[in-house]
């Protein structure tokens, strides 16, 4: 206890503020805390998986609907090696291809328009109401329209994904550029910065940490959207979303879970990569920002 109340004879209360374990031995204390945090972040998922394993093998839950993790692991190589419909590799490859191109185009347009609108009031006045109205349209619902316009191949899929990514990146980038502290701008303007210098030297580095938050969120969303689109339309009948959907139709939950886990890993990996790039390009950002 670091705080104690001692009642004395006169009924005065003495409130003590004393050093605790963290103050007596800061090094080992913080090491211990890190160890606990790390074991929790690994331990909890592992415990859940073990629980699932036990529940499934002891048939507390129906193993037909909830195959055990070891079962799933056993099936995975077979799913990857079998060549039926290109195998799992084909699905992973196709989904990654869609993630990459959809993210690329969406992020590109989002960044350009976001920076431009963040810097120019006129552009903002011209486009913001329009884009804000379109922001809430569920982009997945547009797949039908895109199919009609762009044809039945990869293009409409990439378009839906890019559009989804675009809105996340655009709004975060615009906000980030606009919220660069005015003191930073003033200093540059007072030293005679040109519009380009203001952008390159101040607005871009000043907003980069916030921009990368948008890019990171968009990275996760991209994987979600790809899976969703592939449920509805998967060119060449390939993609993790397509696999999940067909596995459901042929009542093969095992296959479904494997594909879901792979999709989740894909999302984690992609988000991690974007975060690393952000750390590299904006190392001055605070931990919680980049």
């Amino acid at each position: 206890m670091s705080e104690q109340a001692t009642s004395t004879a006169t009924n005065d209360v003495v409130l003590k503020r004393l050093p605790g374990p963290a103050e007596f031995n800061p090094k080992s204390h913080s090491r211990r805390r890190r160890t606990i945090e790390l074991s929790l972040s690994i331990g909890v998922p592992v415990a859940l998986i073990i629980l699932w394993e036990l529940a499934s093998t002891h048939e507390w839950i129906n193993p037909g609907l909830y195959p055990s993790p070891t079962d799933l692991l056993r099936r995975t190589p077979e799913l990857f090696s079998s060549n039926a419909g290109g195998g799992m590799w084909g699905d992973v490859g196709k989904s990654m291809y869609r993630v990459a191109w959809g993210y690329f185009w969406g992020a590109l347009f989002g960044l350009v328009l976001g920076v431009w609108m963040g810097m120019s009031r006129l552009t903002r006045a011209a486009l913001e109401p329009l884009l804000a109205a379109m922001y809430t349209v569920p982009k997945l619902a547009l797949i039908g329209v895109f199919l009609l316009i762009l044809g039945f191949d990869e293009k409409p899929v990439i378009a839906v994904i890019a559009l989804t990514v675009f809105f996340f990146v655009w709004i975060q980038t615009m906000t980030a550029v606009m919220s660069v502290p005015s003191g930073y701008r003033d200093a540059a303007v007072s030293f005679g910065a040109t519009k380009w210098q203001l952008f390159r030297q101040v607005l871009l580095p000043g907003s980069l940490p916030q921009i990368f938050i948008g890019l990171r969120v968009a990275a996760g969303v991209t994987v979600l959207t790809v899976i969703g689109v592939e449920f509805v339309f998967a060119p060449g009948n390939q993609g993790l979303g397509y696999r999940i959907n067909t596995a459901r139709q042929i009542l093969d939950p095992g296959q479904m879970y494997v594909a879901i886990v792979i999709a989740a890993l894909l999302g984690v990996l992609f988000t991690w990569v974007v975060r690393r790039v952000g750390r590299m390009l904006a190392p001055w950002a605070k931990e919680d920002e980049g």
Partner: protein
Amino acid sequence: MDSQEVASRPKISLRGVTTRFVSKGAVVDAVGPIDLDIADGEFVCLVGPSGCGKSTVLRMVGGLVRPSTGEIDLHVTDPRWATATVFQDYSIYPWKNVIENVRFGLDLAGVPKAEGNRRSQVYLERMGLGDRAKAHISELSGGMKQRVAIARALVVEPEILLMDEPFSAIDAQMRHVLQDDLLEMWQSDRRTVLFVTHSIEEAILLADRVIMLSVRPGRIVADRQVPIERPRSAESARNSKEFAELHDELWELMRREVQSQLAASRTAQEAS
């Protein structure tokens, strides 16, 4: 124009300057009308109650805000580096290290990097930061950050140095040190300085001339030469009789200004 005329020409002149801000329908008369001449090499402090338009005057001289009426003339030899400003909140960039921040104005003007570094290093030494050139901004204290900001303004050798409450966010001891540094530096190169502060004490310590503005819209209510000889140090100035007299006079004026404003807002409240 003969040389006599050039010599007597003010460095900065404001003629009938007013500033009116219109934002979201509300109209704020911030400044004026003001007429003011500042001579070449003069150190002028602008004081006045908070919100009276001091920063706005400074920002107009620095070209960040335009006057609504009237005219401001700066008589300079090189318009590129006519003015440089030191802001209250430092406004130095966390994505640049110390020397990159100091070099900023030179970078914008296309001065080669090696040359920029050499010149920046000189001013870092003068500000006592010679060994921190490669340090990150996050490692610096508030006082050090403000030294970086001052070095950044001085390195372009502006003809007019503008300072907007540069020491108000700094603790008292560090403020005294920086005031002395500034005095020493100014006494060695006699640049024209326009320095905004809300502290009458600071104004008298530093300036040749103290100008007091009224409550908003700021007009000049007092324009006093500081009768303390140079070179001075903050220490010696603070203990002089002249300091005490001027300080009391300006304090009384400031008090009356603020009270008149309070009275006005009270009657306005009662009326509504």
